[in-house]
């Protein structure tokens, strides 16, 4: 095979592309104030939340789609989207036995066993199907430690004072176009609250599944770690294969008080569209962590492999003195996927530190951009940042870009940025092959070697998973 053939990409079928045939309650397509009110009413929300939504909706109407990212996509018709879809079941079930077996089966098929006997022993799971959470495991066990882990809809009813205190305080409803849209129509997501001094006894995980074809998913997640608390949280996502694009506009807010630590990991595997770029999820996500307390720490790790479009910049506002922000990212694009992803590290507090490690892999005719901002405010004496952005190109039709922005108002700060670009060469592949290692295994060895620094940051159960996922994504993609 010639060098040109190295880039000749063939699709590996998406394993999660099935649709669950289940009776779904949907509201009509379209968005106006009545739809916002209807969503709020369906969720039986308190007045403060309806006000929050309406304010966001009105702000959104005044805003424009951001166009600064290196992404090309057709205008989204917001009147052609269904904003609420839920499997028809009476209410959230007290026990898994009452959950529709079809839903349990769906999550089984996705490799997320919810049924008691098959659960991962050290991971609690919140399972979100279209617009609603259908089950959260280990709630009682976590409650014994004072940890709250439930869907955000339940939290609104059961812990309204916590929601009112924290919701929208990290990502204001008018933060950006997609955050405003989410704030108006958000459906479900997870709520995590770790009280003072508690180390969460197990991994928490939310699995997001889009099932309906014409529905948007507006995930909203809020994690609060009080003084000295710590938690490790992982989210996963998949969707069926449809030949139309679907919108996923999420907002995730993290709050870490003094000495608290939050580790947030994502394995994103939304449907990416086919090899000709038809279909796939438009993924517009605002994720931000607020290191509010001194010595607090927030760490983002993401493995982005899916979606037709990814627009996502998990960020940290480092307000506390000696607070720490981390961003570890692997973004893989293949075929016609486009990703514009990175982070923002906003240094406010003195001696705040941040680390950015980004690994972009572009194959096929895809485009993969890193976009990152490191900002050092005037009070961030002794702040430090280290950034490393590496790109790997597979074939000769893919594109990789790096857009690092550095703004420092503090002469005492130290900011380092390193970047590299490499290409898997035919000679490297031949070398591995000539030692008996198959072509695809050779590619995947090189790719996982390239991503090792990031995979090392994932919780152990998921590191191997991520490695496999990447190998799968590239299977048949080279050669």
């Amino acid at each position, binding site marked *: *095979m*010639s060098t040109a053939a190295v880039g000749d990409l063939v699709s590996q079928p998406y394993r999660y592309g099935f649709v669950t045939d289940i009776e779904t309650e949907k509201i009509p397509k379209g968005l106006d104030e009545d739809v916002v009110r209807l969503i709020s009413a369906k969720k039986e929300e308190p007045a403060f939340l309806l006000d929050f939504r309406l304010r966001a909706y009105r702000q959104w109407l005044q805003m424009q789609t951001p166009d600064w990212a290196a992404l090309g996509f057709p205008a989204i018709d917001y009147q052609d989207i269904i904003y609420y879809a839920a499997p028809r079941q009476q209410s959230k079930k007290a026990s898994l036995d009452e959950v529709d077996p079809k839903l349990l089966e769906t999550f089984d098929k996705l490799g997320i066993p919810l049924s008691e006997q098959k659960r991962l022993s050290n991971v609690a799971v919140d399972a979100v199907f279209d617009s609603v959470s259908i089950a959260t495991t280990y709630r009682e066990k976590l409650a014994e430690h004072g940890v709250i882990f439930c869907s955000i809809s339940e939290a609104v009813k059961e812990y309204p004072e916590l929601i009112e205190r924290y919701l929208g305080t990290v990502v204001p409803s008018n933060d950006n176009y997609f955050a405003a849209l989410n704030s108006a129509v958000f459906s479900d997501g997870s709520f995590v609250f770790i009280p003072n001094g508690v180390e969460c006894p197990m991994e928490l995980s939310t699995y997001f599944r889009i099932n309906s074809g014409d529905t948007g998913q507006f995930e909203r997640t809020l994690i609060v770690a009080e003084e000295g608390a710590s938690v490790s949280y992982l989210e996963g996502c998949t969707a069926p294969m449809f030949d139309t694009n679907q919108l996923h506009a999420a907002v995730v807010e993290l709050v870490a008080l003094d000495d608290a630590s939050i580790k947030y990991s994502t394995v994103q595997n939304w449907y990416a569209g086919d090899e000709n770029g038809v279909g796939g999820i438009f993924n517009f996500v605002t994720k931000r962590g607020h290191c509010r307390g001194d010595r607090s720490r927030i760490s983002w790790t993401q493995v982005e492999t899916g979606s037709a479009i990814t627009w996502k910049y998990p960020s940290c506002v480092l307000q506390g003195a000696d607070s720490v922000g981390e961003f570890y990212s692997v973004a893989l694009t293949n075929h016609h996927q486009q990703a514009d992803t990175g982070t923002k590290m906003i240094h406010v507090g003195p001696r705040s530190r941040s680390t950015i490690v980004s690994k972009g892999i572009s194959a096929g005719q895809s485009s993969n951009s890193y976009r990152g901002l490191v900002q050092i405010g005037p009070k961030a004496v002794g702040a430090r940042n280290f950034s490393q952005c590496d790109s790997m190109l597979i074939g000769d039709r893919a594109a990789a870009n790096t857009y690092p922005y550095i703004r420092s108002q503090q002469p005492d700060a130290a900011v380092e940025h390193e970047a590299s670009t*490499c290409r898997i*060469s*035919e*000679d*490297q592949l*031949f*070398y*591995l*092959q*000539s*030692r*008996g*290692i*198959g*072509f695809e*295994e050779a590619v995947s*060895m*090189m790719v*996982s*070697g*390239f991503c*090792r620094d990031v995979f090392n940051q994932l919780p152990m159960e998921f590191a191997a998973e991520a490695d496999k996922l990447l190998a799968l994504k590239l299977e048949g993609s080279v050669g």
Partner: protein
Amino acid sequence: MIRPDAPVLLEIRDLHASVAEQPILHGVNLTIRAGEIHAVMGRNGSGKSTLSKVLAGHPAYTVSAGSVLYRGEDLLALDPEQRARRGVFLGFQYPVEIPGVSNLEFLRVATNARRQERGEEELDTFAFEDLVRERLEVVKMDPAFLERSVNEGFSGGEKKRNEILQMALLEPLVAILDETDSGLDIDALRIVAGGVNQLASPENATLLITHYQRLLDVITPDYVHVMAAGRILRTGGKELALELEDRGYDWVDAELAALAPAPLEVG
């Protein structure tokens, strides 16, 4: 060691091959039996390295005519990885660096691929570490090299030792060593050659591709072949190499000119 009754491992017949549309090999014939050490000598551009790449299955080289049988099987029909698993090994003149891929992990995956082909059990990380530490002795290599990325930042001599270490782990039946002596100082040359000698057995065969006599001072070949213009011009015993050392390659040109028609005149 020449034994006329030893099984034939490699049989190259009238092999023609080209790279980037440029014909390089013009009818190579060579038979290698178990237990034998062959040396192919020749000037730069004579086709020696092309021969080694074609045998290993490098994708940039195209075979236009001829055949290669490896233990009776059509070698050219196999992917490079299949050839390696069956016991064909190419020691590279310029081993590439592969950043990020751990040398130890690479050696383990390669060794297990070969073991699997032979119906042997795969080695887990612990069993493999024992094996690799034992084989490191063959090339007197520092175990610290196992922890690094494949060939990354290795000196020329360290890369060549890593090649012979791979050979020691994969236990090939036919080892083709392309200019293994190039870039080695005399001590490194002795270590590398010592490794090759140690690995040679009545069951396997070695094909040395080299420019110079000095490698053949330390590894004694059973056969020496002189290559020019893409074919083997003469074959003899180890004394042929000494003759080359003495007389240089000029007589090869004279002999080549006497052959008609020269391939270059065509078209």
